């Protein structure tokens, strides 16, 4: 079921494509940098896709990375490190157990 939903989500529905007013100026961004954790590219639980945000969740003055996983509606939190980058992740807790958002399957 999860893979079916993800496949459906990856397909564009039968709606017009974005009506684009203008494209990007050339080279607006530098080449994409993959976020790594402990030397490896960050990956969400399979099957799934990543929905990230940065916020100082633990109040230590550094931005932490929160990544929605799709699978089970879970979120992983990667603490911002003093030396830069992010530490190993753990599932966001709510009420003493991993938070899971209903309706994501």
């Amino acid at each position, binding site marked *: 079921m999860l893979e079916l939903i993800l496949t459906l989500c990856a397909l*564009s529905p039968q709606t017009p494509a974005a009506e684009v007013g203008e494209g990007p100026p050339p080279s607006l961004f530098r080449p*994409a940098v993959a976020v790594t954790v402990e030397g490896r590219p960050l990956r969400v639980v399979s099957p799934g896709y990543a929905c*990230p945000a940065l916020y100082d969740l633990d109040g230590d003055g550094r931005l932490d990375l929160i990544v929605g996983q799709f699978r089970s509606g879970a979120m992983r939190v990667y603490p911002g490190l003093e030396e830069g980058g992010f530490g190993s992740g753990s599932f*966001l807790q709510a009420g003493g157990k991993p938070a899971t958002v*209903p309706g994501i399957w």
Partner: protein
Amino acid sequence: MDLDQDGDIDILSGSYSRQSADMAGLLQVLHGDGKGGFSPPEVLLADDGEPLIIGNSEVEDDGGDVERICTRAAAGDLDGDGDLDLVVGNFEGTFYFVEGLGKGRFSATSRKLQAEGKPLSVSGHGDPFLFDWDGDGDLDILSGSASGDVFLFENRGDVHTPRFAKAKLLLKSAQPKVVDGVVFGEDAITGPQSSTRVWAGDINGDGKPDLLIGDMFTLTWPAKGLSEEVSRERYSKWADKLRALVESGETSGEAIDAHYERMKEIVRQEMTGGVWILYQR
């Protein structure tokens, strides 16, 4: 965001769909306790006490389920009244505005955002993020999409009266590297692929906003017991055969299914996603 304006950060999530009634991607709130902890998710209710659902089945141009499922919401004060409003994306790729009434309360009605008389839209997976991208003092809308492209809807109004422009393509999705007709291994993924979800901010502190992008892609590795070299070679031949099958018109379910079964002896695949930072030059 601090959705209920109690001074503590909260998490607002969309969802694919509820299962207990007509399909609709309900919004869920995890209330922060101010100490880094959160409450279990609660369905966000509208001011009428019912779950907040975008779209309206009573209007003639209602798009049905695709307008109400696969939601993602962003909060910001779009009309300058001091209350957080919501912009909610959906499967269709359009965006709804829900007026905030203060302290986490929201109107039960919503309206589709428009640009020059047509709905704001991306090619599936409306993924709004509210941010003053152009630094003119009002909130613009950034969005990923099913295709992976990232768009900007510039707010050409002001802090009281938003007026959005047509989509501007900020970033074209990356294409996986194809070698010998196949996409193979981690090295094939060099940038944001499909189903992108965006967040924006000045990540490196250089005064220019950057993008944080989540995505989805399929990773392919050798099947158990095969070396990478052998797996790549066989997978390339398998892909050639698939193309030949399709070109010959042999697209019956049985033939294709059998061919895909053989693929499992050659490679293993994982549908996953990663996170990318795009620093603005």
